[in-house]
């Protein structure tokens, strides 16, 4: 690994001090008990099957003025910015590609994760997320419309509190629509953490961490699933699972995720419709101003004409 | 001088061979179906795979009107050496090896027959136990024969080292990893034995010029021996191939 000389790097073998705090040394059961109480209410007050996308979903487009399209999505503490740039010709390519290429990059802010500081150089997780994002977006973009061109999509995760891939896909879908890139369908994504027989829809970082931790009892289901869906076409564009779970669990999870993804759709549609309405109003406003200016100019012209004629 | 340690009082080497003895060479042509030619060669514990693609049209930057461009890539599997390698290729040593391979093989190929074309030769070392370069050249020759590329002669490579038995100089043939690591000189020769030409000569340490002649002649003798082995392998492969092909056509 080449060392990054441009920045100040911490000592290579340092360990975050919180590995030795009480918070960190809790056992699996303690952590589990903390996340969910007897009534099935989670730490942040949601029920098991309640996604943050319903109650605390905040999203907007046009965040970054330099980008062709951009979006910002906030799922309570998970905050993601996405920007999409104009298609550009692929440089140094020996073969003509009939389909346009998507270039995706997912980046964590150095301060985004609660457990460790993120390095500036892209690490394995960021690369994997970038590939997953590209995989999820490829089926929905009309790539045949820009052959030999590439579309750059950058996602920056400002704060990570679980479900960051799902948030990134949602944000990228929104940003692509904002950039007026032709698409077959809106894309929505949702993730789910499985711990034993409980399914945490739209998990927080603590829940995700527990789901991929080694359970003390063997043979129970645990793991994470993220699914991206094109709701109108009823197609799954990406599905990724880690951990270990049996078939029934996966089938059930697929159903749950599909419903959740459909629930996100109206939110995104609303934002996009609002965008159109806004831009129409803006257009109207501009036209009105232009007319006023023209009228003023005409008046001035008349004034001068009369002056000239008089002179 | 590290010489005396390399030979026992009985005149045997560290791995039990006599000074003028090659390691066992086993080889097979046509191991893979997708490349135009391929070969596998085992020289003692050194195991090498070679694949040849082409001749095909050369990329614009490389193209030459004079003759075919030989493109070599030498890479070592990460598990091939005692200590794990981090990268299979791209380091200095393997780049140098690619260059040397190219030099030896260009001398053997009738390059003038294919202007504006390119031949790709890929070498994969699966297990390295000394003499990886020699084994690579020998395997590449077999792969070229399998691909049907016209050659001037077999290109064979062999190494030799210097040792003393009492006061008598006794050059060692086909140096193994243990002998290489012991720090003796290693003279590597790639030659076309049937024409008597030398394509590449490399000496790892200093050697008194008085002894150069005998070490070189020992290495050349090794090349001639290897040529016989390769030639037999090619003949056997072709004989086998004919019978196989007959079955297919019937």
């Amino acid at each position, binding site marked *: 690994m080449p060392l990054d000389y441009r920045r100040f790097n911490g000592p290579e073998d340092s360990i975050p001090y919180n590995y030795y705090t009480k918070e960190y040394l809790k056992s699996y059961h303690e952590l589990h008990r903390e996340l969910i109480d007897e009534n099935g209410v989670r730490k942040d007050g949601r029920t098991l099957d309640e996604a943050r996308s319903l109650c605390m979903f905040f999203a907007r487009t046009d965040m970054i003025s330099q980008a062709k399209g951009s979006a910002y999505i906030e799922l309570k503490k998970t905050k993601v910015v996405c920007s999409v740039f104009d298609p550009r010709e692929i440089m140094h390519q020996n073969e003509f590609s009939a389909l346009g290429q998507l270039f995706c990059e997912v980046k964590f802010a150095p301060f985004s994760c609660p457990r460790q500081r993120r390095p500036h150089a892209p690490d394995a997780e960021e690369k994997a997320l970038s590939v997953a994002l590209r995989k999820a977006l490829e089926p929905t973009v009309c790539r045949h419309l820009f052959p030999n061109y590439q579309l750059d999509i950058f996602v920056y995760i400002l704060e990570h509190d679980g479900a960051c891939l799902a948030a990134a896909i949602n944000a990228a879908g929104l940003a692509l629509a904002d950039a007026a890139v032709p698409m077959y369908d809106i894309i929505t994504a949702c993730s789910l953490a499985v711990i034993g027989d409980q399914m945490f829809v739209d998990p927080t970082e603590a829940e995700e961490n527990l789901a991929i931790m080694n359970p003390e009892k063997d043979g129970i289901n645990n793991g994470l699933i993220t699914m991206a869906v094109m709701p109108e076409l009823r197609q*799954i564009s990406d599905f990724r699972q880690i951990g270990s779970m049996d078939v029934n669990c996966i089938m059930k999870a697929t159903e749950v995720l599909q419903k959740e993804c459909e629930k996100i759709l109206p939110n995104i549609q609303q934002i996009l419709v609002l965008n159109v309405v806004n831009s129409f109003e803006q257009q109207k406003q501009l036209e009105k101003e232009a007319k006023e200016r023209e009228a003023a100019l005409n008046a001035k012209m008349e004034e001068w004409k009369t002056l000239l004629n008089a002179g | 001088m590290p010489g005396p340690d390399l030979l026992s009082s009985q005149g045997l080497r560290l791995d039990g061979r006599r000074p003028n003895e090659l390691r066992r060479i086993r080889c097979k042509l046509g191991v893979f179906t997708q490349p135009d030619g391929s070969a596998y060669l085992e020289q003692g514990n050194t195991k090498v795979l070679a694949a040849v693609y082409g001749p095909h049209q050369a990329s614009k930057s490389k193209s030459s009107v004079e003759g075919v461009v030989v493109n070599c890539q030498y890479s070592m599997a990460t598990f091939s050496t005692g200590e794990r390698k981090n990268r299979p290729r791209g380091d200095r040593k393997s780049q140098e090896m690619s260059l040397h391979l190219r030099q030896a093989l260009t001398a053997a190929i009738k390059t003038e027959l294919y202007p504006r074309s390119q031949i790709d030769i890929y070498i994969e070392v699966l297990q390295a136990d000394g003499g990886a370069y020699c084994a690579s050249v020998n395997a590449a020759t077999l792969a070229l024969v399998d691909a049907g590329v016209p050659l001037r002669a077999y290109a064979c490579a062999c190494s030799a080292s210097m040792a003393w038995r009492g006061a008598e100089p006794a050059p060692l043939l086909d140096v193994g990893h243990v002998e290489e690591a012991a720090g003796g000189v290693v003279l590597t020769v790639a030659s076309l034995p049937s024409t008597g030409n030398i394509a590449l000569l490399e000496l790892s340490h200093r050697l008194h010029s008085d002894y150069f002649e005998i070490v070189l002649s020992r290495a050349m003798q090794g090349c001639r021996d290897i040529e016989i082995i390769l030639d037999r392998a090619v003949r056997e492969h072709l004989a086998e191939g004919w019978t196989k092909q007959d079955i297919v056509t019937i």
Partner: protein
Amino acid sequence: MAGLLLSPTEKIYILHGVQDDYRSDGRTNIDYRPMELETDVVSHASGSARLRLANTDILVGVKTEIDVPKPDNPGLGKIDFFVDCSANATPEFEGRGGEQLANNISNMLQRAYNSSQAFDLKQLCILEGKQCWKLYVDILILECGGNLCDAVSLAVKAALFNTRIPFVKAALMDGGSVDFQLSDDPYDCKLLEAGTAPLLVTLCKIGDKCVVDPSAEEESCSVISLIVGITGNPKYYSKDAIETPNFKCKCSTIGMNGPGSVAPETFKNAINQGIIAANSLDEALGRALLRERQECNNFKKNSYGFLK
């Protein structure tokens, strides 16, 4: 892979064959091609295997090194996958050309081996919090004839099954650091338990149907394939087959490959199909490996390598 050119008519021919459950090489949609497997082929590695699935040729070597465990998992060893696409397979892989494919496969493996129920890393622990074994699983792709993922996962499992780890004889605590003495006798070692190691099954969607073990031609007809990682059943991998009553194979990873998308119903069918395929593969692999080990113990083993 290498210069594979198919005309639209040929593609339609393959597609129709899959539709009628009769593929161009005579297989049905759930059949695998014949495989050859040999373990212990590289003497410099602690464990190795070579697998040839029709034209796909994979060589896997496992090397062991001593490392310090991660602070958040003090009781676990480490496992690392490295895939190298040799230029022998196709000239496109020359230089860094095969890197993307290699990364894809190694990521898939890393994720499949992530779960504790897939591969128990506790057996690699030497001294908790201080020292552990790190397994380097190096995969060399020598020829591509389609279905790389499945072939790689089979070869990796075989190589892990074949891996020997030397016993630690004595440990010296010297201040904070630990010194080990490893046994020099090559037979004084333990074998890894790799029975639960996952197998990857690629399901290639052609038309409306999914096929297992696609050839290179079939892969080029498909826009999406589903990769399912299923944990193995340890009963196939030990002689005194202890029947664990309700042992159920689990999915340790699912991923998708290719630019297309898939309908939910097809997706579910494909997963079920994948589990059945993985089970029978696992059984066959276990049988082959046990037979090989038996032969090895009786000193009857012939080594073929690439000379066959």
